[in-house]
């Protein structure tokens, strides 16, 4: 082989570099990474960084000049008001999620049985509470519950009943905020359950009918097992969102009367932003994070296991 042909056959260092970069760029994993990069940057910047920063904040003193470890959390646990906020948040979230799930389930079944041509209008109407901005719809509810000029009370007195202190008395105020949250969130359950119902194969119901199953048995042995995954995910998602609720309580009661409707978010705002103790506010808002994370882990693990079993 001549010198000239050897020189032609050996690539230059620059050629290696170009070829390496070229092959790197052609790898599917690289392309996937690059395409995910904008999303990763958004998650890092808007989710991970604020989360880590708020954890850091929750471990500082009031003036944010010294690291105090878990002192803010232990202090909160020793306070009666915070213990009440924990109880109320759990009561609010669990009650509202159960109500939303039940109402959504019933509505989804009713909707499923409506002829498909007429479903669209009902679906649209029932989704209205969910698509209206929550702050705006809550203002509408506030006018209905207004202490002095409540439209509901006007109707009640019109039929000879006593007016109800919707926002002024402890239990009525709690019921009011749960009611509004349920009104807002039930359409989400409806739409998720309706989608799940539509994906249940009709043959299963036909087979159950041949076996002589009643409507209740079909529900228990066919519908519910087929919907388990979607129910789990919907409940988990809704529970997290409901625990983090702010707008409804802030607009309707501001945590009152006597702190009896405060949730984590509203109490964190009062302590952190209004009272100038941002670290303590961060500690309040992070309080449920470990519990919800554990709950989310087990729920999602169950969903994954069931999905594998079905495959």
């Amino acid at each position, binding site marked *: 082989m001549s010198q000239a042909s050897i020189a032609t056959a050996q690539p230059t260092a620059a050629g290696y570099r170009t070829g390496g970069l070229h092959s790197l760029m052609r790898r599917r994993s690289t392309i996937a990474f690059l395409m995910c990069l904008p999303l990763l940057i958004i998650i890092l910047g808007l989710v991970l960084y604020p989360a880590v920063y708020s954890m850091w904040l929750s471990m500082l003193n009031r003036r944010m000049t010294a690291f105090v470890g878990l002192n803010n959390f232990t202090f909160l646990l020793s306070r*009666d008001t915070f213990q009440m906020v924990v109880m109320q948040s759990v009561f609010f979230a669990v009650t509202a999620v159960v109500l939303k799930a039940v109402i959504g389930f019933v509505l989804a079944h009713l909707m499923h049985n409506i002829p498909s041509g007429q479903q669209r209008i009902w679906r649209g109407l029932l989704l209205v509470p969910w698509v209206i901005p929550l702050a705006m719809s809550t203002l509408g509810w506030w006018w209905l519950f207004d*202490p002095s000029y409540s439209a509901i009370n006007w109707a009640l007195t019109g039929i000879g009943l006593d007016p109800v*202190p919707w926002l002024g008395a402890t239990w009525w105020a709690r019921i009011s905020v749960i009611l509004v949250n349920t009104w807002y969130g039930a359409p989400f359950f409806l739409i998720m359950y309706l989608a799940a119902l539509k994906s249940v194969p009709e043959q299963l119901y036909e087979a159950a009918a041949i076996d002589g199953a009643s409507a209740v048995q079909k529900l228990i042995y066919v519908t519910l097992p087929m919907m388990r995954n979607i129910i789990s995910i919907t409940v988990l998602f809704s529970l997290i969102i409901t625990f983090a609720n702010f707008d409804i309580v802030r607009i309707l*009661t501001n*945590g009152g*009367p*006597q702190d009896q409707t405060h949730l984590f978010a509203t109490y964190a705002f009062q302590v952190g932003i*209004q009272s*100038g103790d941002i670290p303590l506010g961060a500690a309040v808002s992070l309080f449920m994070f470990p519990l919800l994370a554990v709950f989310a882990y087990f729920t999602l693990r169950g969903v994954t296991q069931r999905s594998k079993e079905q495959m």
Partner: protein
Amino acid sequence: MLKSKVSRRRALQLGAAAAALPLVHIRTAGAAGRLTIGFWDHWVPVGNDAMRKMVAKWEEQTKTEVVIDFITSVGNKNLLTIAAESQARTGHDILAFPTWEVLNNARNLEPVDDVVKRLVAKYGSLDPIMDYLAKSEGVYRAMPTFVGSQNKPCCARFDIFKEQVGLDLREMCPAGETMGPSYDQWTWDTFLVAAEKCHKAGYPFGLPMGTFSDAVDWVGAVFRSNGAQLVDEKGKITVKSDQVKSTLEWFKKLCQYLPGDVYSWDDASNNRSLISGKAALIMNPPSAWATAKKDAPKVAENCWTFPTPAGSQGRYIPYLPYFWGVWSFARNKPAAKELIEWLMQREQVEPLVTAVSGYDLPPFASMANFPVWQNEGPPPGTISNYPTKPSHKVKASIAAVPAPPEVAVQIYNQATMTKMIARVAQSNEPIERVVAWAQGELEGFTR
């Protein structure tokens, strides 16, 4: 080949001219730099426009480019802005700070002692409450301003008072420099009797008892005028006192004569109760009366603003001042201070206060004589007593004072006083138990 249209000689001339340009001082907009301001978004709609025009004058005089944002306090957006800018250490050069926010952010605020000293030398001293709210480590961290600063005196229906209580409010507190002979009898005991009579007549007092500032402010003034303090100036918890207990007993009596839903009232509820003609008295700036002037003129022409009653320890009026502060990380601190000082001159303050029909109160007593408060009506002179005068014999009050500010801000914003009253009057809890509950809360605040 392309031939250049610019000759070599012409190119040299252009180059020399460009090089000499910085030597020629051409004053254009923005020549003195850029200034960004976050003013409070005024309740009175014309307030923002008036401020914008006023700042434009300064902008023209100083050739500084000014960018103004009006930040609303609705939904505490101003508090969120302050917290965000303080954390990020970037934002506006000048920002409006409500009552407690100067001390919450003192470490990030530029000292403005020089501005305060010059203005005090010209217009007289500031109320001691300003030292409490704006001084940190002996240094003023923000300038008390007039925009948004308000008193919350009584605003009552003088027709109902005359008919039902037998008290002529315009005679007791006329629109002048002196008060009437019956003024000294205007005490919280008289107030209680008046509340009972008006309640019986179907016009209860519209006094909120919730967690919003209107409720906390007026309740704080009653506590203060009775010497009932929750925490003293050294941070010692003093809630277990006879004064606190007797004040709670007084409130229990009063609450019988208030609408049953006052525990859930917000800052608009009391205004609505006056405007709708349901209430005989509220404690508020003249905004309720101003709205009534448009929406319920018959109510407005029977309204009269006058000082709060006196208690055993004096007469205190709820006062909520605003401040203008300059961030320590501001980019144009000299211009920021210059503008604040310019805006606080009487020549600028008077037209701005007049534009908002006297809603804003200057921090200097020497500016309490603007004609706007005498001229506004109907009825003529109805808000003459809105700014405090020497004859009122009142002191400014902020709920929870004299507790150290870092404790007081929590008592104020967590509405400890109104919650105590709600427990006593709404939930019928024994006073001893309520005081014990408050003691626990306050221990948490003073940690």
